């Protein structure tokens, strides 16, 4: 290894793009060849992805300082489905599907490999705990649902309802 291991703080700074470009490049060179640091990077990236979801949610949970009006978050952010009735309808449909399953699609499932959705799209089955398709044909899996832009009640299908996916929460709350 030609370069020293980065500190955890440096890896965190890389993840949030707070390093200067030369430092980013040096770190990437090291990470490409050091499995130990690559694991640390993966963990840090997972934490970052979690923050994308939980910081806005935690704000709604309370214990936060209200933003000035002009800085208040847009109603529809990259993590939210939106407040339009069509988006809400899609969210409700999807969450109900998550909960109950969708027999017509379930019956089309192959034993392994891929899933053909009712929209004619194909997804790897392991990612298909839930699938939504928005008006732009953007595919959303369960884990990515929160970052998807669902704008219409397009085909929302479900395979293998995820335990706890909607536990104790109304669909609209989860999607908000």
């Amino acid at each position, binding site marked *: 290894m030609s370069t020293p291991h980065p500190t955890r703080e440096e890896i965190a700074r890389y993840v949030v793009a707070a390093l200067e470009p030369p430092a980013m490049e040096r770190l990437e060179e090291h990470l490409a060849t050091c499995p130990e640091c690559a694991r640390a990077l993966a963990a840090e990236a997972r934490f970052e992805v979690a923050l994308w979801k939980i910081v806005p949610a935690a*704000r709604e949970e309370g214990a936060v300082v209200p933003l000035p009006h002009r800085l208040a978050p847009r109603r529809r*952010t990259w993590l939210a489905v939106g407040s339009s009735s069509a988006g809400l309808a899609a969210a409700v449909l999807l969450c109900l599907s998550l909960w109950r399953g969708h027999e017509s699609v379930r019956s089309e499932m192959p034993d392994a490999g891929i899933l053909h959705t009712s929209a004619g799209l194909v997804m790897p089955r392991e990612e298909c705990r839930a699938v939504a398709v928005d008006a732009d044909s953007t595919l959303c899996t369960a884990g990515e649902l929160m*970052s998807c832009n669902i704008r219409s009640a397009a085909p929302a299908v479900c395979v293998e309802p995820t335990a706890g996916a909607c536990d104790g929460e109304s669909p609209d709350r989860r999607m908000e």
Partner: protein
Amino acid sequence: MKSQPMPRSGSSDPLANADPPEAWLVERALAGYRDGWAGLVARHNHKVVVSLLARGLSIDEAKEIAQETWLKLIERQQAGRLSEIVLPGLAIVQAGFLASNARRRERYGAGQPAMGEVAAPRLEDAAIGREQLARVARALGDCPASARRVFEFVYEHPELSYAEVAREMALSTQRVKQIVCEVRARLRSALEKEER
């Protein structure tokens, strides 16, 4: 792909700005202009890469798939199948799909090792439960109000660059980055402490 600029309109021309606004870039990209896409890639590519790293891809794999992601989106736009661009969410979803597809191909392909072998326990899975939400809310509550405000603004507006956030909050870009790193470290520490 078009390369010529749209008609300019006096001194408010975003092209003269080193950090043109997201809405303007989106408009350009939707119209098929190269500079619009270039600006969006510059602004959001790192988040796409991070989302792929979180799936356990190596940095080289993540960069490769991120590049493929943008090409796919540009193809969709050129084919008239992209009427709206909400980033980074759209690119992250597309990248996730490509990564899953690549993993499936490898898994059922020529016996190559599957992508994502760096994967470790999924902290985010644990972190999005109600209890963890409450922990984050508590940890955020313990931060100074000014730092909290900046941190929350950054995470609620992923479409903004640090420079734009800095302008909004009347701070320097370096200060915004510093706050993000400090608050993030506190949150992580709080979550880890309570999990032990």
